[in-house]
């Protein structure tokens, strides 16, 4: 991070930056034919070579990514960067315990000017700093893995895509479900190849959480107002709870919904045509962003229209956990990063799924043990209009790593020129635009049209 206004950075390119960008873009074009078939790989980190990285942002999400990266062979931590000395020191000490002697920086520009051997930077700071830091890192010649949301503003997100294109560097956005083998099998094999769900007519997703207190901080670790102001923060409370303030983040629809709305777009392989929503700041009086929101997208698919309902509640955890569910004429798929929320259901009249079961793409759910409460009447219809009960299956695919690790591995493999990115910035922008549209629908309480041109960075 560096002491300047990130919003101004995202909105426009200064003269000096324009020259740097143009030079980088020219070099990129000149070098393009030399790159591998996957494009944009790092010659110095070819096939399994060590990749020197820096981590910008050593908060909660940065630590999750740090743990995942420590398990990936060939990733060498060289530096950490965070404006909060408390987090910075934590990162430095934690990495030292794990065998990496890293240098620590307050400002990302200071880091970029001094670290000459970096190949990649992982950005996990508050959303409003994503665009300036990512753009600076790309322009400095580094590949970047940046957490979602790309930015708290459309202009910021758009600038990241533009810089990625200008520099020819890799920019992966942290929609990590796109590299999760469970999601890949569900989308590519079960829905697309096997068409087990038939025509998908509806989807719904949710992430509900119980009421929780705002984050605090140890008194002796508080930053001065001057230091906070230098990096755009009003005070220590806003710094720690930035997700709830419009200046820094996008609220729950952005923090939690972005992952799941991305799955709507990715599984449907298109963007929504409209979105309508409702929500509000009804519980937390000290927050700017809404507590609870419900939105409905309309997608025009090759088979017909599908509607997708999404809700995020921060005042109750009821409702069955967090998942994305796709409902079709022949079956329903409920996906979640947590396998315990994942199930696949076959409509009684649908063709059998035996072939997919025999190949281990699906497995029948084990029947629950009979209890004294079970009675034959429990399964009886109470209304003649009820459809026959669905057969239940589970997805036997297991992820034996931390949920972010495959996405990070995909990024580092792309840096080595051995893979293409699963979620490059231009692709992520489409999903994040759908989130921005949902926020607009909730705030204006109106039907918002999603013009395809809006979804192109």
């Amino acid at each position, binding site marked *: 991070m560096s002491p300047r206004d990130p919003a101004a950075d995202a909105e426009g390119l200064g003269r000096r930056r324009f020259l740097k960008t143009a030079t980088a873009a020219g070099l990129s074009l000149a070098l393009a034919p030399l790159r591998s078939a996957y494009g944009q790989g790092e010659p110095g980190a070819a096939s399994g070579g060590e990749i020197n990285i820096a981590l910008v942002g050593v908060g909660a999400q940065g630590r999750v990514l740090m743990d995942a990266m420590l398990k990936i062979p060939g990733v060498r931590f060289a530096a950490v960067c965070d404006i909060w000395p408390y987090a910075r020191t934590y990162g430095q000490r934690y990495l030292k315990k794990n065998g990496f002697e890293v240098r620590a920086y307050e400002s990302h520009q200071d880091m970029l000017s001094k670290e000459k051997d970096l190949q990649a930077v992982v950005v996990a700071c508050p959303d409003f700093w994503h665009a300036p830091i990512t753009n600076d890192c790309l322009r400095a010649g580094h590949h970047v893995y940046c957490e979602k949301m790309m930015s708290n503003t459309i202009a910021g997100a758009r600038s990241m895509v533009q810089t990625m294109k200008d520099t020819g560097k890799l920019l992966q956005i942290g929609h990590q479900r796109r590299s999760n083998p469970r999601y890949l*099998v569900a989308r590519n094999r079960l829905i697309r190849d096997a068409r087990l769900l038939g025509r998908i007519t509806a989807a719904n997703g949710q992430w509900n959480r119980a009421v929780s207190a705002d984050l605090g901080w140890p008194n002796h670790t508080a930053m001065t107002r001057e230091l906070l102001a230098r990096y755009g923060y009003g005070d220590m409370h806003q710094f720690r709870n930035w997700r709830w303030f419009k200046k820094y983040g996008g609220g729950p629809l952005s923090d939690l919904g972005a992952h799941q709305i991305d799955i709507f777009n990715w599984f449907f392989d298109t963007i929504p045509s409209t979105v309508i929503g409702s929500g509000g700041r009804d519980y937390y009086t000290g927050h700017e962003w809404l507590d609870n929101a419900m939105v409905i997208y309309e997608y025009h698919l090759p088979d017909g229209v599908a509607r997708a309902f999404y809700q995020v509640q921060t005042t109750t955890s009821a409702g069955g956990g967090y998942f994305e569910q796709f409902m079709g004429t022949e079956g329903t798929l409920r996906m979640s990063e947590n396998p315990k929320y994942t199930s696949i259901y076959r409509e009684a009249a649908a063709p059998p799924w035996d072939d997919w079961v025999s190949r281990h793409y699906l497995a029948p759910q084990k029947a629950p043990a009979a209890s004294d409460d079970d009675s034959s009447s429990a399964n009886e219809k109470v209304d003649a209009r009820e459809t026959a009960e669905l057969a239940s299956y589970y997805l036997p*695919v297991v992820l034996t790593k931390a949920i972010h690790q495959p996405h990070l591995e995909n990024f580092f493999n792309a840096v080595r020129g051995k893979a293409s990115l699963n979620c490059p910035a231009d692709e992520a922008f489409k999903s994040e635009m759908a989130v921005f549209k949902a926020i607009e629908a909730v705030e204006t309480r109106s039907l918002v049209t999603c013009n395809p041109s809006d979804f192109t960075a």
Partner: protein
Amino acid sequence: MTETPNSNRDCGPMLALLLLRVWLGVRAIATGIEKFSDSRTLQVPLLDAAGKPDSSGAVVEVTQKFYSLHSYHAIPDSMKDKFAQEPFLPAFLTAPYYGILGWALIALGIGVLLGIFTRASLFLMGLLYVSLTFGLILIKQDAGVSWLAIHVAMIAVALSLCRHNRFALTCS
């Protein structure tokens, strides 16, 4: 017309006993063998239709059933816990009982099936089912009691037909 006495040539009772011996024998042997079964979960690569690893690199958990002496379990743990709370079933009796139950079912099943001392094998098998019935009565598993009663009734019928025993390795 005069009816010719044909009791000596009527093979019905002999076939009835043979059928009962086969059913009871197979039932006891299979039940005994199942007490040596277990399952394990393996993680294997997910294969596509051509038998090659799926492009996602996915790994699936596959459950496999297997048999081994090490896997021996006389009765499910949940049932064992219930029996442990019964004053009429002290541990010094149940421990050896659990130890021989599976082996006894297999041995008696083979005896009945092959006709090795058929009467004695059938009678001992009946006693074994009665002992199981006693335990199930204590823990109020009425469905299991009824189920075992059917077995005991079949054994009783088989015993009553033992004079028609054929295809046996030893005398009844």
